[in-house]
């Protein structure tokens, strides 16, 4: 498995645990952690795209 994909479970756990420490209500935890996870993956993908563009 390419090392890059280790970022997916890492981002998922960080998002879920971090948001659990922010709120108590399950629905709010799920909602905010999903948003955080998606934003993190999009951010990492964009960063990867920029680095790939400049290195190619």
């Amino acid at each position, binding site marked *: 498995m390419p090392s890059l994909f*280790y970022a997916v*479970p890492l981002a998922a*756990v960080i998002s879920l*645990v971090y948001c659990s*420490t922010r*709120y*108590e209500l399950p629905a709010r935890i799920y909602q905010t952690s999903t948003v955080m996870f998606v934003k993190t993956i999009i951010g990492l993908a964009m960063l990867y795209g920029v680095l790939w563009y400049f290195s190619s």
Partner: protein
Amino acid sequence: MRDPRINFRSRELAAILAFLIPGAGHFYQGRRLKAGIYFFGILSLFFGGMILGDWQPVYSQVAYAARPDLPLQMQPQDAPVSTRYSIGYAAQVLVGLPAVPSLIQQSRFSSDAGVVNTLRTSIHSDFVGGFMDGGSFIPVTGHVTLSPQGGGAGAGEGQFQGVTTRDDEPVSVKLSGPVKLGRPVFGSPRREFYMSGLKGVAVGASTPTALHGTISRSFKDWYQAPRDSAELDRLHSKLSQNYDIACVFTWIAGLLNLMAIWDAFEGPAYGYGDEKPDEDEEAGDGKEEAVT
């Protein structure tokens, strides 16, 4: 301010439980969902990192040899090794009990007398290394069986069975002579093994006089034990960037548990989750929009 809807019970006890086992403090408080999230989330990250890093990313100390001419495992008692703490362990230890073996191993390592010059118990282990014949080295792999030799100080007798790694020639020889073993507790699954004074041993056309290499070390003697930079180099060479990723996983698991401990003690940082936005916040947003 703590939300009155949450039953914190004893906050101090909850924080201690949360430190020892991720999620245990929340389970004690009856916050089962959070207990599950912390337990499975943090521990899967920690043990995922352990598996990715061959169970070796967690250690509390790095050791340095006093005598650079000898490997750290073979340092004698009169040349005590120096150690420094691993910065990463400051994060890893926050996972609690799963990282505690490092402290036990640190204590065992520091009370260790160094290289073992006396064979006291039998050895049955796989072997990787080679026979020394003057200046030449004949690499071999196989199995070594040794027992303490009666009357000889530290000597052992037994046999080696294996093959030469260059041309797969079978080797089966009887061994007898003084044995030196690497220190018992060390953060490497391989233990240094030196046997000298061999007589009447024939490997192909050579008549070697010594056997140098490594045998396996038991899990309880290497798991989370202090190691030297040579062992860290070996891990990087074997696992490449996976070792670094494994370390990051275990560091982040510990840092996440720090937030979970605080949640057990003080409650969620932003509130229960059903609050309406503050009026000041809304007004602030409005002002900002008006300015821009």
